[in-house]
């Protein structure tokens, strides 16, 4: 990559503040949320004709920055921004569009049942107002794709294309409103669900776009991609800029250091040492994105599941709990097999599962706390009268245990994220489960509530329950888990435990090993 080397020679780190006509220059951007840090005086300078990587852990402010740029969020007053030297208003979708900033979000926004032509032409001005000619539209779509060097059949429905081709169609669509060089294209984790060889196609497109004078802001979790494609990099941590510099001169380890940055806080409680008795045994488990996964869960232990999006770590718990039928594999709880695709049987056997999506999957928001608490283990049918009063008493006791100070008749939807999560925990504790499967248990939860959730999890361990947590928060996993399984490409990449379980190693395992593992699989 000669261009990067040349670039590095011109701009010794850090990037000089006053690059004449930066493709995008944002200064002192802050965004405060009620009860949460968003961005604090963040800067971002993207040189024209470069690929600029934006890195940071979950919650570091990456997505906030993108959303302010896209006009979804309003920034706090005081921020300035300019595009090619022209100042523009942050927080306005129209202004971003007018200044040639284009967004390709992780959810591509394509209609998978429509063909490529329809997807490209939807919402654009059609060639004729009175007669929609398939032939004309198809030609326009084909020309458009060829202009970007994308080789895709325009008559195929988008759902049949590979992920990478879908992403390329989405990029072409975002840039289909005329030929204007010098645009800024924001790609938000475009490779999250791509296979390794597919990433190559996408990178070729990105390089062509850059070489024709566009600039690219590239958000990713995968560090090896930064070295492959990016010219400059900005790292955010806790809403602040940590560094903004050319990629050249950095190596993998120094980048991980920059991302993690601070020492771990003594914020997480110590968990009791697990006994060696195996409670849950998973063997050769396979599903759509999971391949031949085997592991044991011991009594009183917290087992973490980590990985990048698309590595299978999101699906693993669904397969275990019966939320999705598994293709192959056995799951034994205390030696008894659990049938596939039957959550009811899993619950009766002693397996509890709290999915990440609280509003849609973990609970019924329009129901009261009482009804939500008792649903998984309603009084058995021989109990001939479901009494509101005794149900309320039962629910109140459980709410008290997880320190939720609301009457059981309160609607679930009225609670804050932290309280909702605690109610969800209580509902599964109530079933007397011997293994709890928790997906992102502290997602969207503020710091204080996090602590309460950790304490509640600790308490359950004391009674001999085992907990499996899948989380995208590496610090959380390292702090509360005894062992962490890192998923790569649908398989177990590495198992970290004891002194080997550190945030750095975990992040490296998630990001670095994925490529080699993928090639094998």
């Amino acid at each position, binding site marked *: 990559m000669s261009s990067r080397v040349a670039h590095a020679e011109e701009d010794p780190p850090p990037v000089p503040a006053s690059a004449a006509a930066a493709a995008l220059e944002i200064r002192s951007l802050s965004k405060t949320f009620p009860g949460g840090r968003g961005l604090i005086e963040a800067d971002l300078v993207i040189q024209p004709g470069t690929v600029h990587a934006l890195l940071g852990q979950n919650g570091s402010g990456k997505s906030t920055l993108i959303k302010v740029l896209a006009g979804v969020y309003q920034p706090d007053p005081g921020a300035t921004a300019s595009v090619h030297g022209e100042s523009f208003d942050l927080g306005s979708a129209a202004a971003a569009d007018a200044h040639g900033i284009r967004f390709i979000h992780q959810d591509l926004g394509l209609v998978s049942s429509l063909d490529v032509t329809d997807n490209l032409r939807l919402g654009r001005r059609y060639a004729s107002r009175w007669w929609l000619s398939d032939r004309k539209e198809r030609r326009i779509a084909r020309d458009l794709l060829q202009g970007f060097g994308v080789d895709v059949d325009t008559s195929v429905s988008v759902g049949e294309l590979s992920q990478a081709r879908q992403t390329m169609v989405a990029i072409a669509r975002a840039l289909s409103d005329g030929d204007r060089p010098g645009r800024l294209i924001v790609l938000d984790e475009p490779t999250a669900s791509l296979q390794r060889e597919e990433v190559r196609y996408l990178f070729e497109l990105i390089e062509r776009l850059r070489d024709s004078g566009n600039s690219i802001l590239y958000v990713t979790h995968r560090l090896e991609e930064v070295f492959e494609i990016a010219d400059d990099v900005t790292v955010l941590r806790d809403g602040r800029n940590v560094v903004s510099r050319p990629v050249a001169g950095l190596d993998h380890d120094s980048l991980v250091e920059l991302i993690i940055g601070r020492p771990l806080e003594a914020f997480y409680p110590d968990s009791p040492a697990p006994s060696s008795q195996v409670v849950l045994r998973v063997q050769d488990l396979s599903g759509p994105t999971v391949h031949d996964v085997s592991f044991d869960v011991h009594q009183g232990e917290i087992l973490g599941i980590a990985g990048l999006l698309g590595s299978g770590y999101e699906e693993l718990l669904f397969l275990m709990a019966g939320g999705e039928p598994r293709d192959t594999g056995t799951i034994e709880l205390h030696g008894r097999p659990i049938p596939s695709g039957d959550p009811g049987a899993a*619950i*009766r056997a002693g397996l509890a599962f709290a999915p990440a999506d609280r509003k849609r999957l973990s609970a*019924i928001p329009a*129901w009261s706390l*009482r009804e939500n608490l008792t649903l*998984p283990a*309603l009084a058995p049918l021989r109990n001939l009268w479901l009494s509101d009063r005794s149900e309320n008493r039962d629910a109140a006791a459980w709410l008290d245990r997880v320190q939720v100070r*609301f009457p059981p008749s309160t609607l679930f939807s*009225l609670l804050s994220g932290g*309280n909702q999560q605690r109610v969800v925990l209580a509902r599964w504790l109530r079933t007397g489960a011997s293994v709890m499967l928790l997906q992102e248990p502290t997602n969207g939860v503020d710091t204080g509530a996090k602590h309460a959730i950790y304490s509640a999890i600790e308490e359950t361990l004391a009674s001999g329950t085992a907990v499996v947590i899948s989380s995208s928060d590496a610090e959380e996993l390292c702090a509360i888990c005894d062992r962490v399984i890192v998923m790569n490409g649908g398989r177990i990449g590495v198992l970290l435990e004891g002194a080997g379980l550190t945030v750095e190693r975990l992040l490296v395992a998630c990001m670095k090993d994925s490529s080699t593992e993928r090639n094998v699989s």
Partner: protein
Amino acid sequence: MSATEISSRPADQATPSLPRPGRTRVNLGFSRFSGLYVWAVIIAIFSVWVPSVFLTRQTLISLVSDEAVTAILALGLLFTLAAGAFDLSIGQNLGVSALITATLSTVAEWDPWLSALVAIVCCTIVGLVNGLLVARVGINSLIATLGMTSVLLALSQVISDQQFRGPVPDGFRALTAWQPLGIPAIAIYAIVLAFLAWYVLEHTPFGRKMYATGASPEAAFLSGVRTSRYLLLSFVFSGFAAGVAGVLLTSKIGSIGPTIGPSYLLPCFAACFLGTTQIKPGKFNVWGTLIAIGLLATGVKGLQLVGGQQWITDAFNGVALIGAVSIAVVASRRAAAGRRRNGARAQ
């Protein structure tokens, strides 16, 4: 099935009030009992307007015994709506039940009780087929039961041979002819069935899981509810209710015409949806539905007595259905908006 989301399913929270746990708070507020007030106003209007014909025992008796059939049908429909699906075939299914009973007991000269049993079994099987189509095959419930309606319409024409069937034997008519304490027997049957439906829906794990299936199929499934089984059973219940209602209707009126049935569909849906604004706002519930039936029937009856034409019934029921659903939808949106405005994120 997200079918109910089209219309109502107003997020089950028209009242974000927080009653104390333990005791049921007696709340005579307009939000939960508005139907009773409206009903009282309707009665008052017609009492003043046409007192000589409206305020009579005969009017009351005919009102109660006519609406008992609608009520029983609506009780069955409640199960399907609670499970988040629609049973549009319920009206025609009632017609098939009545025609089977009347035809077997007159033309075929079967024992009328046996005929009634056969009718109820047939209608329950129709419900089962609906349930299989929706829960197992996975057809949208509106489409499946719309198709079933047409099949049942054809079946009614075959059974009735386009003729009136009847009169059924007097012994069978006695089922609904007696009036203990001056109350028509059919009304008593309806009340008993209402208590039964209320018990099953509100006070058994079975009913709770039925509601869970309708409220959020995915969350219910992950909570261990076999949602597709409950969805299927809900159609069996509505088929059974249609069978029972058809049998009682035959006993009550004696002779059954070939086009009976569809006229019960709309009042039934109107009552169930209007019922969601009463007693337990946002939730399909038994007592709210009964209040709604009483309110609608009183209105229709009054208009008829004033001298209105037959079309008034149809117009009234249609307007009531649209109005009821509008009220429910707007009320829930207000409640949600209110929460957002207050930032009522309980901390």
